[in-house]
């Protein structure tokens, strides 16, 4: 189905075109699939394919940046402000719409509603029991989930009546619980079976209540940042499997856990992705997250190439830079461009102190000084045609 199936003449004409390898191969297989295609016909086919191919390329000097910015900004007016809505899983609230989009281009350190989608390795993904094992590793387990607390003011003790079924399910023993309490609160505990008791060293009512408060905050198992995990059976390409959705995000910790398929697990916190998987993954996740946000609002028709450009400029420096005065716009070379964006006066004063020089390369600066900008048709010069052609067709050169 490749070059070998066609004659040398055909090969010569096809190789002569500016087509990428994939399309050349497709031309070969098409030609080979038909009988008696002459070299001339093959040439015509290849030329026609090339023509169509070249027609879909971006033109040189196309101001793609502005076009992309507009293509993302314009649908922004059609998005909802309503912050909370459900993303597939009804149990977990996720920021959506315009606020989420703003959050993404702002490159906030933590999203408003951090969330992870945890995929499991094969043996865990198909078995609900085993999937649950992973859940307990992830979900932060607090004391209220394990048993009942009562405060005995007379004896100045806090007693916890642990629920043994839950303990067994979550694979934690009363010994461990007592130990964790001792470590965290610095008190001696008295543990008998499922009953754990402890109290302040000095009888003090205030301290007793404080201990109870602190007790409630201790994480006995799981990851502190993950407050809730929802387990769902999902129909994926590879068949049915259990997928975990978490409220709260701790990507680095979760991918270490056994049973978690790190290659498919994601977080909606782009900084966590960057920290654990690197900048390329962060770029990918910016594209993914913005696309999902747009899709959720019924604006999935926005071309993904625009989002790629935004993600690329955000990650261009090797770190995630926000779009705005603290990021890309604030780190521009031109003083005038920065001054024209935000915090005008400070930029001018700083420029004076540092003795900066504005070379007037960018767009805003040239608008300010009244010169043509160096983009699109402003990036080429025209010269009247020389006498070479007889029909006086003007010749363009850059």
């Amino acid at each position, binding site marked *: 189905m490749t070059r070998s199936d066609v004659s040398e003449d055909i090969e010569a004409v096809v190789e002569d075109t500016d087509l990428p390898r994939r399309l050349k191969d497709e031309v070969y297989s098409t030609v080979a699939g038909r009988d008696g295609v002459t070299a001339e016909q093959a040439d015509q086919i290849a030329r026609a394919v090339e023509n169509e191919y070249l027609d879909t390329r*971006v033109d040189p000097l196309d101001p793609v940046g502005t076009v*992309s*910015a507009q293509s993302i900004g314009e649908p922004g007016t059609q998005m909802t402000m309503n912050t909370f809505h459900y993303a597939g899983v009804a149990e977990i609230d996720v920021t959506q719409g315009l606020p989420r989009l703003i959050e993404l281009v702002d490159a906030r350190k933590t999203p408003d509603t951090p969330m992870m989608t945890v995929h499991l390795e094969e043996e865990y993904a198909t078995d609900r029991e085993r999937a649950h094992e992973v859940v307990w590793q992830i979900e932060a387990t607090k004391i209220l989930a394990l048993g009942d607390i009562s405060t005995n003011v007379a004896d100045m003790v806090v007693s916890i009546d642990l629920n043994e079924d839950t303990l067994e399910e979550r694979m934690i023993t009363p010994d461990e619980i007592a130990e964790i309490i001792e470590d965290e609160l610095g008190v001696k505990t008295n543990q008998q079976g499922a009953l754990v008791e402890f109290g302040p060293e000095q009888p003090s009512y205030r301290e007793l209540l404080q201990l109870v408060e602190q007790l409630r905050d201790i994480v006995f198992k799981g990851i502190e940042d993950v407050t*809730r995990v929802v387990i769902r059976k999902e129909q994926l390409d590879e068949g049915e499997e259990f997928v975990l959705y978490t409220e709260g995000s701790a990507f680095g910790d979760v991918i270490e856990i056994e049973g978690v398929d790190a290659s498919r697990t994601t977080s909606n916190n782009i900084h966590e992705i960057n920290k654990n998987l690197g900048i390329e993954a962060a770029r990918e996740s910016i594209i993914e997250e913005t696309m999902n946000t747009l899709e959720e609002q019924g604006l999935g028709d926005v*071309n993904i190439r625009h989002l790629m450009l935004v993600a690329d400029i955000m990650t261009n420096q090797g770190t995630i830079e926000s779009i705005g005065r603290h990021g890309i716009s604030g780190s521009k070379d031109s003083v*005038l461009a920065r001054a024209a964006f935000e915090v005008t006066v400070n930029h001018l004063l700083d420029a004076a*102190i540092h003795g900066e020089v504005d*070379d*007037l390369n960018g767009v805003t600066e040239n608008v300010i000084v009244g010169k043509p900008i160096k983009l699109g048709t402003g990036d080429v010069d025209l010269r009247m045609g020389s006498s070479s052609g007889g029909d006086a067709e003007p010749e363009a050169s850059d």
Partner: protein
Amino acid sequence: MSTGQSPKEIGEISFGLMDPEEYREMSATKIITADTYDDDGFPIDMGLMDPRLGVIDPGLECKTCGKHSGSCNGHFGHIELAAPVIHVGFTKLIRRLLRGTCRNCSRLLLTEDEREKYRTKLDRTRELGNDVNDVTKAAIREARKKDRCPYCGEVQYDINHEKPTTYYEVQQVLTSEYSEQIAAAMQGKSPDGDDEEGREPMAPQELAEATDIDLSRINDIMSGEFRPRESDRKAIEKALDLDLTEEDMNKLMPSDIRDWFEDIPDEDVGVLGINPERSRPEWMILTVLPVPPVTARPSITLDNGQRSEDDLTHKLVDIIRINQRFMENREAGAPQLIIEDLWELLQYHVTTFMDNEISGTPPARHRSGRPLKTLSQRLKGKEGRFRGSLSGKRVNFSARTVISPDPTLSLNEVGVPERVAREMTQTMNVTERNTDEARRYVANGPGGHPGANYVKRPDGRRLKVTEKNCEELATKVEAGWEVNRHMVDGDIIIFNRQPSLHRMSIMAHEVVVMPYKTFRLNTTVCPPYNADFDGDEMNMHALQNEEARAEARVLMRVQEQILSPRFGENIIGAIQDHISGTYLLTHENPRFNETQALDLLRATRIDELPEPSGEEEGEPYWTGRDIFSELLPDDLDLEFTGTVGDDVIIEDGQLVEGTVAEDEVGGFGGEVVDTITKVYGNTRSRIFINEVAALAMRSIMHFGFSIGIDDETVPKEAQDRIDDAIDNAYDRVEELIDTYQSGDLESLPGRTVDETLEMKIMQTLGKARDSAGDIAEDHFDDDNPAVVMADSGARGSMLNLTQMAGCVGQQAVRGERINRGYEDRTLSHYKPNDLSAEAHGFVEHSYTGGLDPREFFFHAMGGREGLVDTAVRTSKSGYLQRRLINALSELETQYDGTVRDTSDTVVQFEFGEDGTSPVKVSSSEDGDIDVEHIADRVLDEEFGSDERKQEFLGKKRPPTNLSEHVDARQVRGDD
């Protein structure tokens, strides 16, 4: 628009501080009097309006450059300040410098090695383009740690900064009560006077031994006759465990700071990121104040002849007054206190002259109480110099008026009122070939329509064409002249509607001059502009040079913008009634006789009917689909699932099956329009859209289309069924509430019981509305106009119809039932904690049936939320867009396919990873090239003409269509 403007081009702009000497040099005059004009209204010499500072009154001559107002840019003056003052903009930097340099020798408090370290670090950060401030801040932090100067050994003190412009040196000095404190300590009292912990009393003798000081000296100290030296003090403090110091705030006057900074060596300044060649630190303390030229602060003459001065002038008057008083007082030898007060006042006025929004400083106010707009305020913000005057400029040759629709125009055209056409002139270079034409324009004068307003002779003189001289002038016009003629049909202009959210908000149109006063547009271009005709206004710009006109024609014309780069499909297409029209024409495929068929096609370029579709009772007839097919290109083949859900099949340019509606010919991805644009080009597509619109209008007029109240009313029996359905839902809600109240309601995972109840009630009521809608829908025929519009996608949805005829449904605020108002209830009409449907905003009536007052109120609550939401959203998304544009505006594809910014940093090696243009490829399809199809065409030689084949093979470019008027030829070649 003066001629012969300087041909100089700005190469670069460098920033820096100015040397006071430079101020004096460039100054046109020294300003000494605060007065502006004398009694006769003439500017006072060496006053703030000194004629040497430039002219603003027309007719006067500038005393410095001799030019007249308009051409003289103005000249700076200067004020010699009686005492130095601090520049507010640099207070933080001044503080940093004070903290980081030696108070004695002014050198940076860093050793040679450290200095080198920071210098290399600084160079590196500059290279990387990172924030220099991070390094300089770190350098200062390190310098501050030093107690002594590494060069001269001087002890360093902390600097306190009191905002905005006062600096103190904090020194630890001996308290005035040192003798008492020592005596008390020696008697065994604790220093705080706290008697609880007594300590060993100490005799003077012991103290002398412990501190190594003479006993007599100790006695002197204790009696207060001798102040212990620093070393002695420390020894005593150590021996007695005492603290004998107190903080002394020594105010640093600006003159002190200036002296201090003058001695900072250039090398040290460089380490702090300051460029000593352009900005010496002492220049941050002003000794001379430049006075902006009068052209920068023009005074306005009011109607009553009174002059009203600019805010800056007011501020300068204040500064000069205080400056004067300062000098007088100082010469008179006034006490230090008064001098200091005046100094502070001068500082305040200079501060507010530069920035009147400093926190902690009361803003200087106008007599009316309005804060003055001083220098910073002029630059800042949206209406400031940068964003308001420099990035956005006002232009000539522009017009703005209300828009209205005109279906007879092509989508490339715009109707321009004659009055606008007379004003927006085009420059015409007169040659031998167009002399007659040019003369005709001039002869018509400025008042007649295709007339002229100005002519320019070859010697450069511009003459105004008037009613009186036009005839005479016309005879003089010859080759070499320029004529500013009125705009005529076919001229190209740029048309824009704000907000300009995407590039299709600014497109080029061809002019059609029309009577009346509105701009007229074809309705199909409403979607890209997002325009309607409820009073919208639009802007028009007449182009002023040939290059601009050419670019507008080739790149910006509406037909070049049919495809949107956002989703790669057509954004222009049939809308609203056009869609209803094509739907009626093709849905049931009605038959038309010859007259009717010709009438439908009369606004298109089809002037001959095709073969009849069939014959009925001896009469030939044409079906709707066949008539529509006349507009399609002859070799179009297409097959897809259409709007109504059935297949649309087009074979060889014949609509074989299917209904033509929104997904077929509409804007935002109408399949047929999209394909024609991509395969047959923009020109063919424009013709198609124009003709579809024309045919659709004819068709909808043929069938007649109207909507009224009756179209949304349901018969009695249907109404009863709807009421039943709603009652049913009410019962179910009651049941839910009962289970909830008895505590039997089971909560959904991750939700509380309350939330579960709310969700379930919402669900039930939602279903109730839907079933009411279904019942209503059953009673509407397919030819009901509201149904036609909803089905075809022309306007409205089934939900709208449900709300009109069935039941409006649950009103929501923040995605929940209405839960606000009184305590525990929404309105005083309900009992507290009533959970029922009607108490929380369920509207059971329909819009046609009418809402009751409570329902109306809830409906208004929901409606209000919608309004607030839109208002918030527009501002938020506007800012988002501004930021995005600012961040990405410099990116451009290069000839090598990479995407780079203007400083040549590569952002993408290939745009969108594959170099595919988002305009040409739909985002929803994979957009792959169909090689098989191409092969079929080549092998079967399916080309209308040889020309098309050449185009198909890419050997010949399709002709560039530059004007609507070229169409006649264009179209004939097409089919």
